[in-house]
């Protein structure tokens, strides 16, 4: 895997989170009934950062949840490796809430599709909005994000890697050459 470009650096990363937080607050006219739900694994940490940022803007903390969509995936039969499931941790009833679903990269849209199904099984929210750090295109589902950190047009042979301090010891977004594509 070779790095082709660093798209967002640490400072840009912080600014992007700040902007996304503001947009979420603005669109929802505050944070009344807003629940931020991060998708495992990296979405979970981005959601946490957004929640913290909103807290510092609004002085009130929105609810936070973590969603694991493994059980809703559509690729069990085609993947070579069995995905590991982890626990979904959403302690509140999401019925009648405004959900902001947070993930790191929006690509084919299949993970979001799985997340929507999973959320519907958890309750009946009034709305679900999608917030992603990077939208790299190549959608296979009719899905559009409500909040986008950065749109990066990519080729199919490229991959977007989001690195986070919580897991990867740095904040940043890279465009890399994908070794497995082109098969």
């Amino acid at each position: 895997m070779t790095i082709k470009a660093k798209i967002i650096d640490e400072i840009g990363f912080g600014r992007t989170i700040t902007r996304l937080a503001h947009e979420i607050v603005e669109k929802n006219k505050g944070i009344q009934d807003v629940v931020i739900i991060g998708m495992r694994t990296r979405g979970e940490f981005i959601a946490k950062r957004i929640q913290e940022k909103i807290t510092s803007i609004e002085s009130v903390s929105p609810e936070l949840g973590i969603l694991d969509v493994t059980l809703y995936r559509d690729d069990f039969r085609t993947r070579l490796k069995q995905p590991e499931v982890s626990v979904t941790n959403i302690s509140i009833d999401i019925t009648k809430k405004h959900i902001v679903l947070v993930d790191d990269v929006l690509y084919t849209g299949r993970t979001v599709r799985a997340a929507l199904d999973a959320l519907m099984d958890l309750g009946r929210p009034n709305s679900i909005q999608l917030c992603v750090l990077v939208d790299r295109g190549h959608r296979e589902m009719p899905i559009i994000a409500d909040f986008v950190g950065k749109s990066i047009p990519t080729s199919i042979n490229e991959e977007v890697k989001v690195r986070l301090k919580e897991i990867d010891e740095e904040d940043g977004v890279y465009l890399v050459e994908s070794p497995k594509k082109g098969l």
Partner: protein
Amino acid sequence: MSLTIKHLIGLHGVPSDDIQTILDTAKTFREVLERPIKKVPTLQGKTIVNLFYEDSTRTRISFELAEKRLSADTINFSKSGSSTKKGETFKDTIRNIEAMKVDMIVVRHESAGVPQFLTRISKASIINAGDGRHEHPTQALLDMYSIRERLGKLKGLKICVIGDIAHSRVALSNIFGLQTMGAQVSVCGPLTMIPQNIESLGVKIYTDISKAISENDVLNVLRIQLERKAGTSIPTLREYHNYFGITAERIEKNNKDILILHPGPINRGVEITSEVADGPYQIILDQVTNGVAIRMSVLYLLGTRQ
């Protein structure tokens, strides 16, 4: 994290990593069971046959629920006794079921060895729901899950299985599974109910129930039945209760920190008093809920294995 095993026949020889994976994955499903919609689409399009050659409403319901909650298509096939006596051989029955393109078979049978036999004649993934007096691996896994949930660990714990060990499928699975996870397992019961050479498995034998209570962290209390040959293993249920029954008095006198499990159905007043069965030491109903989660975990891990 994939399992190394393709079938779940027993816990004998199953590596600790596999057991760990099953227990950890069950935690996810335990959470699913708390949701308003307790169902996930994971095994959509998979067909699972519940092949019950012996009555066991509880185990069957638990498996069926687990399958349904994973969105698998399920078929129940119940028969009692040898199929051959009814004109079709067991093998033909399996061949027929297999021709219907099933992915997994959950099997309960009076004869030990049937699940293993199935792996030789069927391409489906086989899950043993109890074979003779051999193994009942999902029961032991749910016991282990429940103990871990309550005590936070398995390693180093002392667990005593109490009752008719010789006729029990739960005892062997408990012994194999718990030993693999680093626990010490012992058995307690009248010697007529202890199978030969069980001490060769590294299992201590108690015949004094008070001592078993005082020297262990967990008791797994088995159901006592007066079998067809009444009076050959134990004289009466009353005598069993008086000498081996789990009573509040015995617990309070010997070990107030004890944790009590029972695979059900409970024979109140025989192996356990109502006071204990409904009291603070036991986690019997947790076991039932955990049973569904454990079975979902096993079905998921084997059903999506590549």
